[in-house]
């Protein structure tokens, strides 16, 4: 249709503004979602079979609608204006006497008009279908199933609920988690030195003879309950024992490298430290 020059008599200020506002495509005029919905509403007002509708009249109504909408300073979507110019063009072709020869690949205007009418009839059918569905009895709104089914669940076992959308959701959910995941090692819990010191001090009376460090250090609680490891108990107890040795409350000895460490309370408290 670009072969024929035509002037749509419309300026595109509103559309430009709308585009600049970034809302050119989401504009909502009087609750109409798009030009086709406006056309449908206008066509319905002609109160004839949609397939026999006067496209000429429809084009006029639509142009008037767009003009009015523009005057009310709605930011007008590009779609509405494209439709307006197309309808203006179609209208002119319907009004003008038929040329001798049609330009190639351009269908007669009447046919185009009929197709528009058909398309509106299709949309109208879906509108009416949506209303019919909405107004029919709906579960949990108009009809209700057993509120308290008996304990026995009778399920139709051959049916397997395969939902591709759910599968995609499950997949994406994990991939997102995968991206969000960070490694956060939990610091091992240590047996506090203060606690080890206090405990060892309390045990001094029991340490009359040489006792192995391994036997003095507390044992780790059963696995899985958290808490410090056995190694931490032993290490902290050893550190505490060295402090007590320094204080002179304790004696320590080790026969050779890596051998067991033995501890014994000093007979009299308060003397000088032994090596």
């Amino acid at each position, binding site marked *: 249709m670009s072969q024929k020059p035509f002037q749509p008599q419309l300026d595109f200020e509103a559309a430009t503004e709308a585009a600049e506002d970034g809302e050119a495509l989401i504009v909502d005029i009087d609750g109409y979602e798009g030009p*086709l919905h406006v056309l449908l509403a206008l066509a319905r007002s002609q109160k004839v079979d949609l397939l026999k509708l006067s496209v000429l009249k429809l084009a006029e109504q639509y142009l008037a609608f767009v003009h009015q909408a523009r005057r009310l300073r709605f930011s007008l979507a590009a779609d509405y204006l494209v439709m307006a110019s197309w309808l203006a063009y179609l209208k002119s072709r319907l009004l003008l006497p038929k040329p001798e020869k049609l330009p190639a690949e351009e269908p007669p205007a009447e046919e185009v008009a009929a197709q528009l009418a058909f*398309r509106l009839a299709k949309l109208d059918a879906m509108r009416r279908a949506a209303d019919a569905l*909405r107004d*029919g*009895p709906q579960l949990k709104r108009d009809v209700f199933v057993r509120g308290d*089914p008996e304990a026995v669940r009778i399920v139709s*076992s*051959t*049916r397997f609920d395969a*939902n591709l959308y759910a599968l995609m959701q499950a997949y994406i959910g994990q991939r997102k988690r995968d991206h969000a995941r960070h490694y956060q090692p939990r610091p091992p819990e240590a047996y506090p030195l203060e606690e080890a010191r206090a405990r060892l001090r309390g045990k001094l009376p029991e340490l009359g003879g040489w006792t192995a460090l391994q036997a003095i250090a507390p044992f780790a609680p059963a696995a899985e309950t958290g808490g410090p490891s056995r190694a931490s108990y032993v290490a902290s107890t050893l550190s505490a024992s060295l402090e007590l040795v320094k204080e002179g409350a304790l004696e320590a000895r080790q026969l050779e490298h890596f051998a067991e460490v033995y501890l014994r309370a000093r007979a009299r408290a308060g003397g000088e430290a032994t090596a």
Partner: protein
Amino acid sequence: MSGRVQVERMIEALLFAAAEPLSAADLARRLPEGADVGAALAGLKQAYAERGVRLACVADRWRFQTADDLAFLMTEEREEPRRLSKAAQETLAIIAYHQPVTRAEIEAIRGVQASRGTLDVLLELGLVRLRGRRRTPGRPVTLGTTDAFLEHYGLSSLADLPGALEMRAMGLLDLDLPSDFSVPNPAAPVDDEDPLEEGDEPEFHQDFLGAEGEGGAD
């Protein structure tokens, strides 16, 4: 008590106790050999036609449900349903009547781009599902309705969609628009659209459940 009455009693009890609709095959499996399930269901439907509870067939399965003229009593049972927007309702209708249908085809019928959120909502509610792909260039994903859709709207099958027959007769459900049709539509050009293929009819159970679907195949 005659055999027929006994079968009716059994079906009645099973459907009352069940937490979800049961197919005739589900029922037959639980009834004594040779029970005429079809006749008993018809008899029950008749017997309950005027009562406060009715026997209904949804998605090819049977359930008892309250009579719709008593909806006004059910204030306590009513769940505040998620209200579908007008756009979502229209989209759902197009999917229901035209399935399997692609997103581009939905947009072509509505003349606007499907806004984000419209399809999501329908998928999320489980009213709509992805069916597969159209065997055309680009292999677009096709959409269709679910059993939950039929159950929600109380339809026994897609053939029960209101007005579907007339619409089909008038050609209103054809996806291919008349040749050379060219309303400009910057949002969704339709000229690259292919018609549905032979054999791609919305045979719900066949497509979805394959050979072992529904029937007593267990």
